[in-house]
């Protein structure tokens, strides 16, 4: 099997380049295993992974342009493995997600002026309408696959103020959270709720299986009811 890997060490190379390697395809081989095979058999690669189970997001790469988790994605045959698009490359397959993560973390902070009591916590919550959608968003590991693939974030030659699917998931989570008291609908609109074109790319690339479009639909209904239907103004001054 021929595996091509995009390599780039910004401290040495002028620009990224692609190297093709011949590796043996093993049964049930994942993309991560192919990367490790190249690293060990041919030459050192910069790559990252931790949990091997789509839970930490660190191994996310693109395979023939499609973002995926290297650990739990089967490698089908000859392909090009490259870093996630839309992020600065640290080296080879490793990208810098710092600011991406920081922005989501801020949106995830619960807003509430009083302490949660045990009694409050022990009150039942709606299983179908609240618990199940919250649980599904819990599995977002902020790998960046959706952000990298989202056409509404990564517009041709420009970026929008849209936080992207993963950030919007954090807001949807807090909007559902029975203990959160922030105005998450207003925040979602500000972060680009109406920028999404509902193309379903995030649903397709999400290793956690999150149903983003249902979450957006719920947020949009709440926003519409309040007449909040604008996209955020872009950054430009002129």
């Amino acid at each position, binding site marked *: 099997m021929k595996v091509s890997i995009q390599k780039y060490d910004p401290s040495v190379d002028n620009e990224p380049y692609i190297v093709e390697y011949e590796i043996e395809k093993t049964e049930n081989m994942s993309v991560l295993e192919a990367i490790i095979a190249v690293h060990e058999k041919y030459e050192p690669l910069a790559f990252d992974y931790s949990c*091997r189970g789509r839970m930490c997001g660190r191994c996310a790469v693109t395979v023939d342009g499609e973002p995926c988790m290297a650990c739990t994605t089967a490698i089908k045959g000859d392909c090009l493995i490259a870093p996630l698009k839309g992020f600065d490359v640290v080296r*080879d397959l490793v990208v810098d997600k*710092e600011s991406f993560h920081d922005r989501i973390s801020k949106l*995830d902070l619960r807003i509430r002026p009083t302490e949660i009591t045990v009694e409050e916590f022990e009150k039942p919550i709606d299983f179908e309408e609240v618990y199940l959608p919250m649980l599904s968003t819990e599995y977002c590991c902020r790998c960046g696959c959706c952000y990298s693939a989202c056409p509404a974030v990564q517009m041709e030659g420009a970026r929008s103020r849209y936080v992207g699917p993963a950030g919007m998931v954090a807001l949807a989570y807090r909007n559902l959270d029975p203990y959160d008291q922030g105005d998450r609908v207003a925040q979602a609109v500000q972060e680009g709720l109406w920028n999404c074109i509902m193309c379903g790319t995030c649903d397709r690339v999400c290793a956690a299986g999150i149903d983003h479009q249902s979450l957006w639909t719920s947020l949009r209904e709440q926003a519409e009811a309040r007449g909040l239907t604008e996209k955020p103004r872009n950054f430009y001054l002129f």
Partner: protein
Amino acid sequence: MGYCDNRQPAGEGAGFTRRSFLKGSGILAGATFAAAMGLTGCSDGSSEADKGTAEAASGSDGAVIEYDVFDTEFLIVGSGFAGTSAAFKAYSMGAQVTIVDKGPFSFSGAAGMNWDEEVSWMNDPYTDWKNVLWNESLANQKFIKAVFEFTNNDVEALDMRMHYMRNGGTTWSRNEDGTWENLMLTGVPGMNMIQGGFSRHMQDLLKSQDIRILDNTMVTDLFVQDGACIGLLGYHVPTGRYRVIRSKVTLLAGGGSCQMYGWHRTHPRSMNTPDNSGDLEGAAYRHGCSLISNEFFGLDLISMVPESYGCSFNSGMGADGNHMMFVCDKDGEFFMRDFIGYDISRPVREAIMAGRGGDHGGLFLNLNTDIPVNRETVRPIYSRNIELWKEQFGIDVFEEGYMIPVTLEAFEHGQGPIIDERGMTEIPGLFSVRGCGRQRGDTTCYVLSPYVASCAVDYIKSVAAPANVDWSIAEAEFDRLDAMRTADNTGGKRPWEIRRAIQEAFYEAWEPSTDADKLNACIEKLELIKEDMAKVYVADQSKAFNVEWRTAIENEGLMVSTEAAVRSGLMREESRLTFFRSDFPEQDDENWFAWTAAKLVDGKMVVEKVEIPQVEE
């Protein structure tokens, strides 16, 4: 195609600014340092908040080695369950806190797996300090009791559910009527358990506080001067910049290492992450700390398929102590259905040794029974992978006759440097969450860790800054690391080959059971591997995210961690908990109710028996 298309002459790394300082300028820079580091924040080193004072020294080969200096009061290594709760505690007590994490903050270690945590809570206060959840037979009883007193036996404060809920929140598992789930499976009367915890929100909250986070920073050594720990030494993984982090007090909370537990295509037979490679244990040991609980691991059954991601908690199928009804032998007999207990290793090993296992060296899970696969019978963290397997690899676990091969995997290693009843190691100024003699880490570190943090904050008051910081100590370490990266050892073994040799030697000696012959043979192999390590070929000289170099450095800690496990195991002539010697299959309290402590003496590892501190009644 050959190795290394980016080898350069030592010290000529492109893209790096090298500012030359006069030797000794570190003292001056250190004095101006507080102003420079008044800023805090979460950063990868690229932002202003993250920049320390730049220092430089001449390496042995004449090349300039530059490093950044940071200063803090309370330095914590690790941002997992223990590290975050220690940080919250120390911060709430008014300390200036800096967290160092080897990986990206909130995406490393066990807490960086965005998973389904299980926690416990009680109905009533404890009736006796000895019954606390964080006690274990081999634990330092003085420490356990001190932790108990610290908690005031406050039921609500000990309620882990509320700890999560109040520090960022999580959903916790709910029943269909919307009430919270109570598994009642702890086996302890009055003790409850719940699943569905996600610690990510707690880390988000921590990030928003005035706590400095130096992530992607690997600790390679302690900064020890005149016998006291005055900080840590290491480097920023993405850029290769060396870092000195000075502190009044340092707390090790990096988690245990299970990286010696064999190898299976992309990982050891362990859910433990590759970041946990024994760096801190190795550093503490080199500075004279005794490592204990080396021979004790926490073990679970986990799938070996799909091979690319078997042994992973998050994408595999497993059987935790409370989900044993699907475990069977090669003939399909469900022999563990009546088993109740935390440690499953003994019956599993006995079955394997009796020839009831499969060719993969383990047992099986068979989900094709009359028992439904649901939240009651299989943890959601596993059952959600059934679809993944089918979609990616066409493996159908419900196919007639299909049995999932599973094996013991190490989810925890007890190892830690001996701590006293305050949590301080044998080195003044160095505290550790591990090292009280417990065999495993678990969510009770939410209790142990704040206690140790509070003791460490108290300790700050008694610390005086060194009269003269000896920067040559740090510079010698950076020189050593640079030499490892740049040495021309062509023809030597590459770091991953050495890693694999350690893993294979250990696993062969350890599973499914061990004995004196296997352990002695393993020690011989480790000695040979050490020779290879001395001439390791780092086939990549770039300083940018150099996996090769990092693996080589990590191997040193992993060797210490592994050797300590093997030598301690050889000394302990009994079987206890997950430690199983076929030549001494019984527990021997008369002779072995004690710690085995591995210590560096005259360049060699020496293991000795140490008495466990008890509370006088």
